[in-house]
């Protein structure tokens, strides 16, 4: 299996705290890897480093063989990295459908011309002109994207489709998480990174989400998942990575990791009584 994502020695310090400490991680094409670990282990920070929202103090990130360390999030999105956010970041005043369409932003080619160097300076003006004049190709592209967005919404059963024109702020918590995942799918990702997609969901909703993520896996998507619900992790993952205090403390098949004494210790929190164990505490 060729590695789609290769992380080497990735480190991020916040003052005296090393949130991510020399982390190595490999993710093969079509692989499904979960990252688990107690709160504060550095999982989200790792996501931020990989997606360009934060800059590492040391280490490298390679995507499909190319060094992408320190790339901006915009650039990484264009390279096919899509993520969701642990605490939910939908565009509150945009309709559900518009949220999905923003997810497809990097795939709008007709209305966002890409020109070589000197011409690229006037790209924004061309984009403005095309948006206002709307030649056939632009209209067709918009129509096609809308179709696809509706198809994405349909994947969530009747959760989102009937609410497609409602503003995202009016949605339930669980539906907002769904919108986020829909938005990530609209990007047409090569690498999908989900940060606790079932946080705050009840059992039915979690099961539904698990089924959806299972479908995504079957469709061949490469997925990196942060999740606290271990049943789900064990059932979905090809491989599980366990983090604690910024380190990777275990990495292997679900069954191996489950019985690793270091993992059990980290989870039971013998060495640090002040940490809430597995289930997410209010953050």
């Amino acid at each position, binding site marked *: 299996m060729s590695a789609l994502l290769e992380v080497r020695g990735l480190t991020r310090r916040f003052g005296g705290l090393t949130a991510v400490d020399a982390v190595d991680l490999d993710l093969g094409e079509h692989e499904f890897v979960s990252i688990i670990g107690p709160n504060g282990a550095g999982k989200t920070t790792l996501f931020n480093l990989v997606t360009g929202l934060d800059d590492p103090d040391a280490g490298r990130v390679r995507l499909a063989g190319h060094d992408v360390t320190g790339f901006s999030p915009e650039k990484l999105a264009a390279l096919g990295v899509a993520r969701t956010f642990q605490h939910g970041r939908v565009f509150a005043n945009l309709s559900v459908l*518009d949220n999905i369409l923003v997810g497809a932003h*990097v795939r709008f080619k007709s209305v966002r011309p890409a020109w070589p160097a000197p011409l690229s300076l006037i790209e924004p003006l061309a984009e403005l002109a095309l948006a206002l004049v709307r030649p056939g190709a632009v209209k067709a592209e918009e129509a096609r994207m809308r179709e696809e967005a509706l198809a994405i919404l349909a994947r969530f059963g009747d959760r989102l489709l009937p609410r497609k024109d409602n503003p995202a702020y009016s949605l339930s918590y669980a539906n907002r998480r769904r919108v986020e995942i829909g938005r990530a799918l609209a990007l047409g990702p090569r690498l999908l990174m989900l940060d606790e997609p079932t946080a705050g969901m009840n059992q039915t909703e979690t099961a539904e989400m698990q089924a959806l993520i299972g479908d995504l896996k079957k469709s061949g998507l490469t997925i990196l998942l942060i999740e606290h619900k271990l049943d789900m992790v064990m059932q979905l993952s090809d491989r599980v990575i366990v983090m604690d205090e910024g380190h990777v403390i275990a990495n292997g098949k679900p069954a191996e990791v489950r019985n690793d004494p270091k993992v059990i210790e980290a989870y039971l929190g013998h060495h640090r009584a002040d940490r809430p164990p597995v289930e997410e505490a209010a953050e």
Partner: protein
Amino acid sequence: MSSWIDYTVNGLIIGNIYALLAVGLALIFGVSRLINFAHGSVYVVGAYAGFLAVTYLDAPLPVTIGIVVVVGALLGLGIERFGLRPLQGHAHIAPLLATIGISFVLDQLVQLFFKPDPRALPSTLLDQRFQIGSGTIGALDLVIAAIGLLSAGLLYYFLRYTRLGWAVRATAQDRDAAQQMGVDVDAVHRTVFAIASGLGAVSGVLVGMYYNYIDPAMSFQATLKGVVAQVVGGMGNVPGAIAGSLLLGLVESYGIALFGTSYRNLFAFVLLIVVLVLRPNGLFAGRRRAPPEPLTGTFIAPSKPINLPPSALLGAAAVAALVPLMIPSPYVLQVLTNSWLYALLGLSLTLIAGTVGLVSLGHAALLAIGGYASALLTLNAGVPVGAAILSAGLITAFLGTVLVFPSFRLRGHYLSIATLAIGEIVSLVILNWEWLTRGPIGVSGIPSLSLFGFELDTDRSVYWFTLAVMVILAAVQFRLLGSHLGRVFRAVRDDDVAARSYGIRLDRYKALAFAFGSFAAGVSGGITSHIYSYINHETFNAQLSILALTIVILGGMGNVTGAIVGSVLLVGLPEVFRVAAEYRVLIYGLVLLLLVRFRPQGIMGTL
């Protein structure tokens, strides 16, 4: 040599006075994350309270100061009560906008009571000067220095050694934690507003004595200076505010020595922009730390916008076009023409502040750029008026965007302050760049409107022309909002982090929105200059920026029809009822204050 000592002393004294303002702003920002735009009004009220005490009560200096402190503190409590407390849980920029409203109301009240003309604030101390080395220092200088030091000492003691002072520091550090530990955050706010406003008021009376001059218009400049000093020292940083103030005083004083008085404020605002962009935490803080959050600046209240069908909009445009035939009164036509010009400004601001979420407080500068561009193109280069107005729009789009571009990385309040400063810089450059702009004399003899060689010399033709331009630009803006760009702009506004993660380059889209919006503002300024035939650096003043903001909030942020409705209501209605000019600003202030509090989504709803 001796003059340098004088300039230094002068700079430190002015810096001392700024410090009294800036410390208050820093205290308030520290506990409430609010930039209190009413602070300059407190300063003015303080100056006038001192004036009353000195002229009518013959009060000696300590009594005067005592009275001023009490008046200031009471006023501070009032500002906290109306500007901050009711707005907790609203958008973060809501209290800022409310304090702008309060400052309009206070300044206007002072003007109504005391008349707008400047007054003398005599001080017997002014004439006594002592020789030190080769320079001199006045008794008043020493008093000011003493009051500055005494206040700093008292404040230090209060913050360090009293229970309440401890509560203030705890709240400033972590509001929620302080609350959980039983700190009465409301009491902290009241205390801080009272102290801050007491100091601000003293600052006002001291400035009045120093220059033997007070006038109600000092308010806005005072707020700005306090904000500059605070930004330089680091927002919410009390010792930083003092250092920033002294630095600002010195920079201004030496600047005046080198270049003359008209450059004074230019230095202050350039310093502000440079610090904001390069060192947003102030000169004394580490570079990598993020500025204090949360400061997202959008002012978008969830609402169900009223969506008029295109037929209704066309109908409304048709009715507007028929007005000159039905009501031939030149007065009504002029008032409505004016409304359309403001609507153009509103279209611009509603896109920039509403749709893409950059709450600009310096929008009048775009009018000024457009107005000067069109006037000078016709006068100096003989460009036909129609082409000049179009070019003015393009020039404004370009210049406006270039000027604001470095500030796009700023968020929330910081961007708002930056736009405010850029607005002031534009007006000061116009004042000082004499060979191009004719400086303080202004530009006169600007040719009246004409199009393709036809003079638009009747009120009707001017009306139709302005209406047509406005309707066309509104239609284009509708189309823009209906495209993928409308979606992208609003995504940038709602969550810039998520937007970036989906491939949206913030600078690019902010610049696009800014350029598009600036075009309309530039065209509006251009047309205005040809209608007025005379403009100067004060024609498009900072008050207009706030009026524009009130218009777009009234209409509903981001809402195209809202901008037009807001403009007709706010510019047209007072004319129709012939409200006297001095009450108009009062009304704008009140409307802004009430909107922020009770109807942030405006009339037509936010988009």
